[in-house]
């Protein structure tokens, strides 16, 4: 798997862990909670999805986005990067781990964060692992 990223990513993946706050398995939708920024640095941890199948991204998440308590991601939300600029957000690729990037530019005001997160969730597609779909 090529872990390098292009200068202008087209699609990003946001890994999902919480069935109550990140997505609704029954309705097949991504919830706005999946796109609420980290409260400490107002960034959103994502991965570049370009050139990868859903299965490959699931495997990538199992390898690089496993958490000690929550385990491996249950799936991811796929979002066109063009949606970020509509909300004055930008993506900073750091490749730490491979394909990782941070979305920055969120407001410090929570209601604005919620509004942006609702828009991003509405534009995202839910990609659950086969065992959960």
């Amino acid at each position, binding site marked *: 798997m090529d872990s390098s990223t292009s200068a202008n990513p087209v699609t990003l993946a946001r*890994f999902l*862990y*919480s*069935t*109550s*706050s*990140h997505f*609704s398995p029954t*309705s097949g*939708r991504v*919830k*706005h*909670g999946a796109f*609420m*920024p*980290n*409260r*400490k640095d107002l960034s959103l*941890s994502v991965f570049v999805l370009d050139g990868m199948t859903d299965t490959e991204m699931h495997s990538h998440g199992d390898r690089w*986005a496993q*958490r000690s*308590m*929550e385990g491996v*991601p249950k799936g991811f939300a796929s979002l066109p990067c063009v949606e970020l600029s509509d909300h004055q957000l930008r993506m900073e690729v750091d490749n730490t781990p491979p394909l990782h990037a941070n979305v920055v530019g969120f407001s410090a*005001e*929570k*209601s*604005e964060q*919620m*509004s942006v*997160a*609702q*828009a991003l969730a*509405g534009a995202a597609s839910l990609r659950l692992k086969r065992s959960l779909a």
Partner: protein
Amino acid sequence: MTACAGFMDLDLFDGGGSRGAAPEARELERKFTELVTEQMKPVSIQRRVFGALMALKDVAVECATPGWDGYESDPLNSNSLRNALALLVQLPSEFPLPEVAVDPDGEVSLEWYRSARELFAVSVGSSGKLSYAGVFGRGKVHGTEFWCGEIPYALIVSLERLYPKKQGLRGLFNKR
């Protein structure tokens, strides 16, 4: 047996199960039970809110420990839980009960969802701050109110946009 008594008799928490340390989950259970006893007295309110409380209980167990969302989240805040329960009890019966979740900052999130272009969410803070945002077709709204024992008018207006009444002037303005 009232719905409240039945609620109290249920084994609502499983000690956290595989999620998080048992002491944190047990403490949350104790506070949750205390809040329910405090809020749910009239039988009519008990029955209506019971479903939301059961969903909130499940969420409370999942979100009892730091990092529950995989991204350095704060655990569910007990004061936020208290305020959210109080808000749910006050919610007019004409509106359906929301889906409940927790935000990364530990605040309870209440969401009314009809479609990708028709939704409204309120985040209930520990100090009573209510952060809200909604999508109504091509329109959007977001802002801040404070909980003072009654649901702020701005939230009622947004809920009426989402669930317009069949009669009355407000229903005319909410037609899409």
